């Protein structure tokens, strides 16, 4: 009755359709509006830098896989492309062309492949790459231009000259907010447009690729801390909206901190992770020499992920308070 041999495998015999590849490509897809905006806002250099970054990340990934004796087809999982996009999005649009190439070597070569490749890295590769570049080439990494005109980031102005100077530069508070939300300000390629980043994130939330736990706690804790402590004058004089819409908070909260590999497994852990990111971002912005603190805060929390995973695990079924003891009636 049977004309061919049967397949054997253990249960389950049906699987979800969403694969690692789909997750990676969906995240990349959700970032295309942001890329389109940054090309419009910063000019074609944004596209070149992104393109070079993606290409070098994929190349470094392929070379490392070859050296490690792994199938090179693994580059199709899309994770290297995504790292390339995120690395570029964390660079100023005016950086020299070789900077993203070096960034890719650090991001993919050291932060990812040296640790064992996809799934085994401790640090978010794109952020590790960016932080290396920021330390090694601080001038190139902090020169901001919009259409050829040098323009410091709002956070830098706020840090060095204060809120009054910032408001006067943008004429009024609503205008400042408008520019911050739409992204028509100085900054890295992909970090300025809060509204487009949010739209991309809503798509990812809808597809259940990211969960709300990290971004919401991250942004909320920064909002609260900013309101209470960020003001120069006194307690509770901070501008929380400015605090969350400036710098790389939205890119960091929705796309970098939510990196699955380097964030905790459990919901509780994710909430703590998001809060920690918010806290460190605030501390660096308030007390550090850098006006921005998103990258370092996420990197710091990456190191905390293993210990969070160890202690913040769900309570097993059957050991809740309500449950009877096995030996009791």
């Amino acid at each position, binding site marked *: *009755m049977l004309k061919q041999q049967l*397949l054997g495998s253990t249960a389950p*015999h049906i699987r979800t*359709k969403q694969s690692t590849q789909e997750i990676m490509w969906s995240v990349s897809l959700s970032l295309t509006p942001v890329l389109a905006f940054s090309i419009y806002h910063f000019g074609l250099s944004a596209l070149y830098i992104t393109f070079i970054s993606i290409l070098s990340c994929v190349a470094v990934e392929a070379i490392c896989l070859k050296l490690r004796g792994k199938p090179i087809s693994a580059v199709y999982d899309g994770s290297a492309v995504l790292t390339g996009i995120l690395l570029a999005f964390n660079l100023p649009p005016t950086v020299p062309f070789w900077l993203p190439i070096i960034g890719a070597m650090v991001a993919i070569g050291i932060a990812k492949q040296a640790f064992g490749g996809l799934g085994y890295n401790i640090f978010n590769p794109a952020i590790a790459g960016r932080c290396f570049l920021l330390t090694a080439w601080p001038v190139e990494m902090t020169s901001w231009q919009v259409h050829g005109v040098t323009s410091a980031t709002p956070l830098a102005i706020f840090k060095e000259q204060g809120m009054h100077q910032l408001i006067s530069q943008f004429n009024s508070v609503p205008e400042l907010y408008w520019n911050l939300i739409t992204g028509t300000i100085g900054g890295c390629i992909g970090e300025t447009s809060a509204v487009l980043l949010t739209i991309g994130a809503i798509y990812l939330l809808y597809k259940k690729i990211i969960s709300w736990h990290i971004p919401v706690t991250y942004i909320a804790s920064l909002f609260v801390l900013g309101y209470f402590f960020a003001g120069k004058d006194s307690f509770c004089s901070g501008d929380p909206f400015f605090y969350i819409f400036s710098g790389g908070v939205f890119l960091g909260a929705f796309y970098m901190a939510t990196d699955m590999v380097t964030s905790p*497994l459990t919901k509780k852990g994710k909430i703590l992770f998001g809060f920690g990111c918010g806290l460190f971002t605030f501390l660096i912005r308030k007390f550090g020499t850098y006006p921005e603190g998103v990258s370092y805060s996420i990197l710091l929390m990456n190191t905390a992920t293993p210990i969070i995973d160890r202690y913040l*695990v769900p309570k097993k079924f*059957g050991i809740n308070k309500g449950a*009877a003891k096995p030996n009791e009636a």
Partner: protein
Amino acid sequence: MVTSKNTKTFKGGIHPDLDPYLTGNKEYFKISPPDKVRIPLQQHIGAPAKPLVKVGDTVTVGQKIAESTGFVSANIHASISGKVTAVKKFPVAIFKQSVCIEITADDTDNNLHTPKKQDWQRLTPDELKNRIIEAGIVGMGGATFPTHVKLSPPDTKKIDIIIANGVECEPYLDTDRYTMCNFPHKVVEGLQILMRILNCRRGIIGIESDTPDAIDVMRKTVANLENIEVLALEVKYPQGAEKQLIYAASGREVPSGGLPMDVGAVVNNVATMSAVYDAATTGKPLIERSLTIVGRCIAKSVNITVPIGMLLSDIVSQLGGFVENPSKIIAGGPMMGEVLYSLDIPVTKGTSGFIFQTQDEAVTFSMGPCIRCGRCVDICPMRICPAQIAQAIEFGNFELAKKLGLADCIKCGSCTYVCPANRELVQLIKFADQQLKKKKGL
């Protein structure tokens, strides 16, 4: 109409993407008795039964052909009349062989003659329990735990709730709905019999809300009974798992490492209830069961009732064979079922269905690295971390795996289902379980 608002459920679990062609109610198809059955001596959890017949003996349907060899064991009866043609090892599942009693039909009367129906309410709890033992009844949802063991809790455990499991244990299967819609009185009275045996005042029939016809029929049947309630549950896998069902129906959590009786609950499948009713009223042994045959490559997807021991090949040929070559044949459901490598496999007391997958459906997967998305943790109905446990097992660290809750796993397969990297999470857990059992045995 049942809405999803007022339905109860457990925490975690999945809503698998199902093939709409294979879900839903199936027609009933009448199977005629086969010429040959192969009845395994081990169809239950516990010790295998001891054969009472030898090759050449003539047996009649319903005759006890193997007897229970301990407390956790069960009697086995002939499901057709005929001659015993073999008592030897046959394949019963993949990589598994079990001693079977093969009966070849002759022209003797193949109808079961049971004594006149008796009113079970006149029997004492002990008499009722003895009838269940005599009839060889085991859990028919798939776990095949001998029913009388569940009915003999130690004196310190007071059972105050009995749950009839009308939740299809897996997607695509349709036998519980078939049993409830066609034999609602047997299910309810079977439940009442168990309540009498355990001196328990409360019964619950749990049914998922995607089978509204079964809920309606059961609600009508229990309309005049005060102490039995029909509960509509949310459609979610693994709702039919014992611990999850108890939680959904009563809010009680069976303690880690404990048994349902630790929270005063006993769960039995509705088909088991129906078999209990038959055994208590007429003494009819467990010699047949209903099951679902489903697949795109088979001529008909149907519910059938067949004698225990009937070979799958006979069932398939009565149904009209295959319309396309099957690539994978699964005994049980798509989430926990075992694959078969041959059609010469008998139906046992625990077989709830057979699934036939085509080449397109029976995809193979290559395992990728864990990207730590945490989905397996979010959906685990036992709230353990499959990703971490699987990783510990991969590194050979079984002690760590045990510490992380290896023993709590119910092997429902939800983690492997949701894993985007196609990691064989539940498979690794099963592997570690086997290795640890082996170690203990040495």
